[in-house]
């Protein structure tokens, strides 16, 4: 039976029909009956036995090859140039989520921002407090540093009011924003306290400004989200 099948296929392809099924055999995809027939065939066919060995070598080579290829040129500049606009677009997309999906999706982002700032603040303050010598001569009062800025405080208050007024329909979001803003406030307070011990310290001042900037940014995003949620 097998011989007749082979003969028919041979007439059509001019080759051993089992050759076309060797991968199937090799991968264990062949039905038991066909498998037994092929094994009987292999016992007497040098061509198929040889091909099977070679296919095994191919598979072995494939399993051993590591497709690593460092580019000849630095591809990063080309990637980076395309990230910038998409980064802004992504930020917009994040805000748009609010109008289509539960607004609480913003919460993880707020939490991440707050945690980052808080962790940074705690670390900096700890380092400052444990590794610094006692404060030297009094420097400029913290009030003269950018730590206190009435315009900033007014902007924050205004944004907080906008967010609070418009998000009353989703208490989860209001709660998340409040919680994370509180965390940011702790960080800001820590920086301020450290600055009071080391007035005018440029490192602490930069951190404080960054934390306040982050708070403002979070509030701004929340306000935009709130506005879109209203629409």
């Amino acid at each position, binding site marked *: 039976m097998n011989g007749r099948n082979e003969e028919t296929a041979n007439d059509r392809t001019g080759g051993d029909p089992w050759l076309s099924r060797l991968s199937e055999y090799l991968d264990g*995809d062949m039905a038991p009956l066909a498998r037994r027939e092929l094994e009987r065939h292999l016992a007497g066919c040098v061509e198929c036995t040889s091909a099977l060995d070679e296919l095994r070598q191919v598979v072995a080579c494939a399993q051993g*090859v590591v497709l690593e290829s*460092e*580019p000849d040129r630095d591809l990063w500049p080309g990637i*980076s140039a395309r990230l910038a606009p998409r*980064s802004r677009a992504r930020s917009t997309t994040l805000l748009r989520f609010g109008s289509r999906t539960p607004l609480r999706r913003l919460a993880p982002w707020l939490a991440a921002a707050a945690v980052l700032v808080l962790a940074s603040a705690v670390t900096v303050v700890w380092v400052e407090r444990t590794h610094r010598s006692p404060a030297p001569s009094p420097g400029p009062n913290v009030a003269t540093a950018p730590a206190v800025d009435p315009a900033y405080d007014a902007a924050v208050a205004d944004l907080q009011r906008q967010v609070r007024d418009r998000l009353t329909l989703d208490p989860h979001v209001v709660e998340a924003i409040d919680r994370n803003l509180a965390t940011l406030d702790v960080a800001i307070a820590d920086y301020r306290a450290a600055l009071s011990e080391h007035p005018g310290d440029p490192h602490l001042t930069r951190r404080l400004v960054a934390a306040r900037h982050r708070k403002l940014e979070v509030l701004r995003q929340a306000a935009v989200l709130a506005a879109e949620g209203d629409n």
Partner: protein
Amino acid sequence: MVATLSLPAGQVGTVRGQSRWRARSEASLTDQSTEDRLKEEAADVALACQGDERAFERLYRFHVGRVRGLTRSMAGFDAADELTQDIFVRAWEKLHTFRGDARFGTWLHRLAVNVILEDRRSRARRRAVQDEDERALDEASQPAPDGTFPIDFAAAIERLPDGARQVFVLHDVEGYKHHEVSELMGIASGTSKGQLHRARMILRRYLRGEVARPSRELQR
């Protein structure tokens, strides 16, 4: 055990025992440096999710070799750089969908495969007749101009016909099953099997011409 074939500069071809990308990505932690690296990577992913491009650049630097290697093998040398860039841009855009269930490298690999195959489908639509396949089939087992056969097995893979090459890379190199390959490529499982066999038979001719030199290297 690592055996490196003698390759022209810039060619693919480090050969190691049992070291597929997926296996590496999913391998259990074996030492502190690996664990540290994964922690750093997780931190970079988190930062990149928040828009930190420098963190994303670090991820790029670590993974670019593997991504480009995959791209080069599946799509060819000429398209490798551009596709690699496309993949990282897509990764940036999709980072928010990465939930940390798998390693970042695994996620990136899957994304890379999708981008490569999308590109392939796009190119296939533009190409009315894929007559280059037969030419590629012949070229794959042709000696190099200097009369010798190419030493690099990965280079031979690159010269396979389009569909056969992608199935071969996904199945035999990356370890996907036929049903996964057929799903990824949008082809029937039988087609996947047929293309795989076709690729193996071509590479078999290559190895035969090579007098089994790569296989001896592999057995070291």
